[in-house]
């Protein structure tokens, strides 16, 4: 029903917008006596101007109203809920979602004809089985409706209806006012184009600041929940404890250190695979390969970067893991006849596959960077009688070193933040171990496991994921900023 009202309001505003567009255009033309050359701007700009003033303030208010109204109503209703319900162990969120659900159910029941509007306002749990009535129209409730919840829901519906009425009025008046004023001012001397362009420019600015908004959103959303977490759980345990053992009955050990160790260990294995292969591939492609080999090999290598990580995850879990087990595991039946590896998930599994994924990342970044080393540097070295490899090792690579370090840092940040490969390939055991054939877990896998399935956003076991996420964000952001800074400095040096 709410959607219905909103829909009609939007339609009405849009209709007014069209009318304003046509009217303003016509008025401008007539003001110029039919000679559009006398106008300051093209006639369409007068139309755009009017349309803008009709639609934008009205729709803006509409959006803000729709977002603010439920929150205000919920706050008001929540204050009125009797305290004993909260003491019964219901969290605020659970409570409110119950209220919302019942209110929605009543809406559905009314629109399905199972109830009259009047009955929905008056119905009492003492006299009728609200749950079964709602159930009959397809709204399933988890438990019987408490009287307090029902009356709160009715209050909710009432406030919503009143709010909607006000909103309709305010929005339509705003739209009409905008239309009237903008059509009225559409004279020959009105600088319609400048106004429209200023508006477009402000829209462009809004779009550009969305990037900032996203970052702020990321930081704030994680910061608030992390603070909640640290209110429930000692920060000393999170940063300096030695155990990761979430326990949904409470009293968990939630330390990031074992996860950080797993993350770093896997990343190191991955970089040990990716750096030599990627770097040598880049050296070969930029210094030795002819144009044909380059045109063939470079895009092929880059395909590896375009493959979704879920594919690598599956590759780790179902191909590389079992392959490693057949070498290092299975006792007598294995290739080495040893029993060092018991399951497919292990640090080595995830590290190897992540390394493969990072090869093109390292190689194409290093390739760019090696190409940025001036040819004069190579000529100088070759002219002294050094071989190509001596030139590369002693002149080109040292010159490119800062850039390559930047590339490696970017790759490291990728490795630390990678999720799917470790979710499928690394395992779930948090521990400090040096054995690469054991399963270990990472920050990202724990974020996934703490935030999927049944989650209670009031328990430290769930909220810890936000603290983990924040740590991950800070870690990768630090690496990225550093890497981008180094690379930028490096490029400026040769420009």
């Amino acid at each position, binding site marked *: 029903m709410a959607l219905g009202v909103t829909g009609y309001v939007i339609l009405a505003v849009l209709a007014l917008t069209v009318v304003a567009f046509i009217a303003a255009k016509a008025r401008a033309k007539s003001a110029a006596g039919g000679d559009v050359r006398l106008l300051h701007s093209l006639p369409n700009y007068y139309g755009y101007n009017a349309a803008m003033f009709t639609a934008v303030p009205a729709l803006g208010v509409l959006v803000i109203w729709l977002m603010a109204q439920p929150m205000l109503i919920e706050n008001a209703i929540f204050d009125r809920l009797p305290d004993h319900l909260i003491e019964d162990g219901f969290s605020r969120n659970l409570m409110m979602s119950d209220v919302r659900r019942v209110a929605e159910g009543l809406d559905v029941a009314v629109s399905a004809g199972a109830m009259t509007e009047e009955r929905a306002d008056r119905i009492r749990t003492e006299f009728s089985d609200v749950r079964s009535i709602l159930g009959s129209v397809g709204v399933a409730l988890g438990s019987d409706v408490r009287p307090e919840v029902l009356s709160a829901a009715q209050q909710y519906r009432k406030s919503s209806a009143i709010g909607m009425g006000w909103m309709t009025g305010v929005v339509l008046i705003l739209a009409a006012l905008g239309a009237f004023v903008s059509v009225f001012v559409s004279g020959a001397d009105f600088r319609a184009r400048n106004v429209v362009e200023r508006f477009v420019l402000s829209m462009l600015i809004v779009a550009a600041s969305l990037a900032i908004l996203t970052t702020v959103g990321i930081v704030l959303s994680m910061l608030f929940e992390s603070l909640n977490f640290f209110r429930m759980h000692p920060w000393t345990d999170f940063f300096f404890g030695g155990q990761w053992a979430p326990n949904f009955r409470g009293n968990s050990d939630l330390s990031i250190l074992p996860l950080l160790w797993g993350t770093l260990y896997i990343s190191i294995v991955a970089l040990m695979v990716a750096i030599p292969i990627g770097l040598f591939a880049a050296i070969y492609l930029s210094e030795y390969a002819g144009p044909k080999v380059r045109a063939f090999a470079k895009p092929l290598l880059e395909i590896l970067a375009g493959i979704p990580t879920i594919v690598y995850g599956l590759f780790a879990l179902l191909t590389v893991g079992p392959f490693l087990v057949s070498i290092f595991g299975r006792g007598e039946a294995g290739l080495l006849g040893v029993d060092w590896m018991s399951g497919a998930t292990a640090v080595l599994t995830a590290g190897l596959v992540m390394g493969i994924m990072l090869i093109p990342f390292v190689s194409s970044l290093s390739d760019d960077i090696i190409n940025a080393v001036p040819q004069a540097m190579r*000529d100088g070295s070759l*002219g002294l009688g050094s071989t190509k490899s001596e030139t590369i090792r002693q002149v080109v690579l040292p010159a490119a070193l800062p850039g390559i370090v930047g590339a490696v840092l970017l790759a490291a940040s990728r490795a630390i933040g990678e999720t799917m490969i470790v979710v499928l390939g690394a395992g779930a055991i948090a521990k400090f171990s040096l054995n690469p054939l054991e399963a270990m877990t990472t920050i990202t896998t724990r974020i996934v496991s703490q935030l999927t399935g049944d989650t209670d956003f009031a328990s430290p076991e769930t909220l810890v994921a936000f603290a983990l996420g924040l740590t991950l964000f800070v870690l990768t952001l630090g690496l990225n900023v550093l890497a981008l800074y180094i690379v930028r400095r490096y490029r400026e040096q040769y420009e």
Partner: protein
Amino acid sequence: MNDMRILERDVDAKAIKIAARNVQVFYGDNHAIKDVDVDIEDKTVTAFIGPSGCGKSTFLRCLNRMNDTIDVCRVEGDIAIDGEDIYDKRVDPVQLRAKVGMVFQKPNPFPKSIYDNVAYGPRIHGLAQNKAELDEIVEHSLRSAAIWDEVKDRLSAPGTGLSGGQQQRLCIARAVATQPEVLLMDEPCSALDPIATAQVEELIDDLRQNFSVVIVTHSMQQAARVSQKTAFFHLGNLVEYGETGTIFTNPVDPRTESYITGRIG
């Protein structure tokens, strides 16, 4: 340093160091050097002059096979150093370039310390048995390049921090350090200011004592000042080759005369 110095120059015949016969160079389909025959003498400064794009730098790069690094470039004909064909299959360009050093148009010191820049050649060619010998080579090379007094207190400073003229002299020191027999210089002063140019020119004259120096230059004055022999290139052909004095005062070919007098360029 005035142009009249050429008249005082000793013009004794010297041993022939490089002999080029019938040299052709192609860049893909472009015939860049046509039928060049030239004999370059030992312990002499030979200047290659000519308008831009005439092929003088290309020919210079043939003399130590630097053209090998360009894929589309093809060289035909014979170039012999001390009677040995340098385009022979058995010749390792690396060994050749140790013998025929090169200094480039723009100073290109490595992003290393001044010391390491100079020591680079001796290190890769294994010229020093120990640190003391290497120190000696570095010092001698820097002295030969007339830059020792300016840098002796900051040998571990990066070579890229020097001024343009210093950088170019450092590059010359770097080339001298490998103890080449021939030193090729591709417009070594074009990126330098007049004072630095004068320093480098003076240095080139000194280097003649030990090496055969071949210098490509845009500046006729420079060729007249530093060289004993001059070769004039035009559109890929070697037009005229002879004593510098003769070329500048009494050229045989009308094209040479046009160039010298500034009618083509």
